[in-house]
């Protein structure tokens, strides 16, 4: 990092030996911390306490942990009942099953009832890998953000996931926290501020380009793919290819419209990046916002109306068009479109 970043991002951000941790681990740590701070925090799991890292909470607070078995619909509604009695329930399973299988229970018994249940969906995205398409949730952002009262958070790394979990434990809104299985780079640090609903500039080209004049393209990313966006932006700066500003959009709902509109104004062209279907996802949320307030050309990186399959995370991200080269192509495309207008 050339300059002291006011967000106090990981100083090893662009180094080869950057630390890696699974985002879900941050959830496990955050829930344990939240449990220590508030005895109303309870944990419910559908037979996946190890995979979702809820076992950390379970071991420390067995009397506040409910194992419901492989029954995600029950999981959601039992949590609703506990919340109605003053508890702050966290429910965890794979995102495919919660909020996938139990969507209506989440809509009716959690969001329509407007109770503070926190839904941790692990194993989101194609990077789940070898388990294949049945277990790769790439529709979860779309189906959660569409429900009234729901807050949707997609943390970029394990540290942010820990902070998001702890923050969610203090709010009264139903909240979905999207988690990934694989180890991914730690971009933030303990000191990086986090606030639900606040987007943050993780790469500002003026900090990296000597004779910086203007931003060419704004990139908005959510989840671990943010790291690929940062690397591409750095490469552009290092090689004099252009100036790319990158926003970390960890809260997808409520949307930080001010930050998005500001970036659209400044850059005049946007690329959105998410490990999710393009239809209905974070990019769609950006488009809904920008179309209303400051229309600019947008390119969308994500899965294009297809199901996942088995493979390594890297193979799958490349195959489905979410690799670094795809980001570069999208940047060039949107830049051309901007200049045509």
């Amino acid at each position, binding site marked *: 990092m050339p300059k002291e970043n006011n967000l106090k991002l990981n100083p090893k951000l662009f180094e080869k030996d950057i630390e890696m941790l699974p985002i879900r681990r941050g959830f496990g740590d955050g829930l344990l911390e939240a449990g220590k701070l508030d005895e109303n925090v309870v944990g419910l799991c559908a037979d996946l306490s190890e995979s979702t890292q809820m076992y950390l909470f379970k071991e420390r607070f067995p009397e506040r942990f409910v194992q419901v078995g492989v029954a995600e619909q029950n999981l959601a*509604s039992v949590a609703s009942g506990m919340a109605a009695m003053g508890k702050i329930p966290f429910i965890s399973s794979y995102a495919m099953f919660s909020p996938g299988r139990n969507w209506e229970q989440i809509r009716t*018994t959690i969001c329509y009832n407007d109770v503070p249940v926190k839904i941790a969906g692990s194993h989101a995205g194609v990077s789940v890998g070898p388990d294949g398409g049945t277990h790769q949730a790439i529709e979860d952002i779309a189906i959660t953000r569409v429900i009234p009262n729901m807050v949707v958070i997609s943390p970029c790394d394990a540290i942010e996931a820990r902070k998001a979990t702890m923050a969610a434990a203090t709010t009264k809104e139903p909240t979905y926290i999207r988690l990934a299985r694989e180890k991914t780079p730690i971009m933030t640090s303990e000191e990086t501020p986090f606030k639900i609903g606040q987007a943050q500039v993780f790469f500002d080209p003026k900090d990296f380009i000597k004779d910086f004049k203007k931003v060419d393209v704004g990139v908005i990313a959510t989840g671990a793919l943010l790291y690929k966006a940062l690397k591409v932006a750095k490469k552009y700066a290092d090689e004099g290819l252009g100036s790319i500003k990158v926003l970390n959009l960890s809260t997808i709902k409520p949307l930080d419209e001010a930050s998005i509109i500001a970036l659209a104004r400044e850059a005049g062209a946007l690329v959105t990046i998410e490990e999710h279907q393009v239809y209905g996802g974070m990019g769609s949320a950006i488009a809904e916002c920008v179309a209303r307030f400051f229309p600019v050309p947008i390119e969308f990186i994500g899965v294009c109306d297809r199901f996942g399959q088995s493979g390594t995370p890297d193979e799958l991200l490349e195959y489905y068009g979410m690799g670094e080269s795809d980001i570069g192509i999208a940047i060039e495309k949107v830049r051309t479109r901007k200049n045509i207008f």
Partner: protein
Amino acid sequence: MLTDQGIILLEKTANEIRQSIISMLVTAGSGHTAGPLGMADIFTTLYFHSLRHDPKNPTWPERDRLVLSNGHICPVLYATMAHSGYFPVEELQTLRKFGSRLQGHPHRDFLPYLENSSGPLGSGLSQAVGMAIADQINTKNRTGAELRGPSGIDRFIYCLLGDGELDEGQNWEAAMLGSKERLSNLIAIVDRNNIQIDGFTEDVMPLSPLYEKWKSFGWHVQQIDGHNFQQIADAIEQAKAFFEKPSVIIAHTIPGRGVKEFERKPEWHGKPPSKAEADMALAELRTLGGKISSEHQ
């Protein structure tokens, strides 16, 4: 204890509640008739005898909780709540109207005295299980056999279920968890009226043997005549006294009970009476089927 005098009062109240159900449904022009009429005796017993609650202080923290799972029978819930003093009886005429607190299916954002919103079938028991677990955590008796610990709240969670909605698998997920958690503070009441929207339950999707099903899921099971106030009240007392297991009361009811024309007919599950049918039904209720002369004729 339910006295003979008490039973007479409950009968009278249930009759008034049935009249309110008919009159609110005909005003609304849509809604369900058979289920609400069939459950009037049970709701009356709960709100006027068994439940620990205070209509003048609806958010009293120590109140019992009543979760209605089959939200479509809400006319009986609204009518019973109004008659017991939660809100004016006149407000019942706003059922299903724009801006009304009495939504077509219960929504607690609109009517805050409700414990839950419902309509989509099959998730009420899960919510009641969650409430009962929360209480067991609070009383530090979650893993123990007794609910009423020294710091315990002497409170019960009631869940009212339709029989048709037991087709939903989620009920059985909840039943397993209730049994696993030994929720002796949970009392489910199944409205066994044998009808659902497409016909008789045993034709649409057989539930029989229902008693054995609940038994095999580890619940304490009682079967009663859902129109016998003494049996209803006694079954609830027995359910309260039974430790170690959650209780279910299978209440055999007659859909449309109180109005001969509507009784036992699946076609009355999901429609309201017309004006003429409502007049006939109200006359029948006011005269107790012709046994007395009505003052309103």
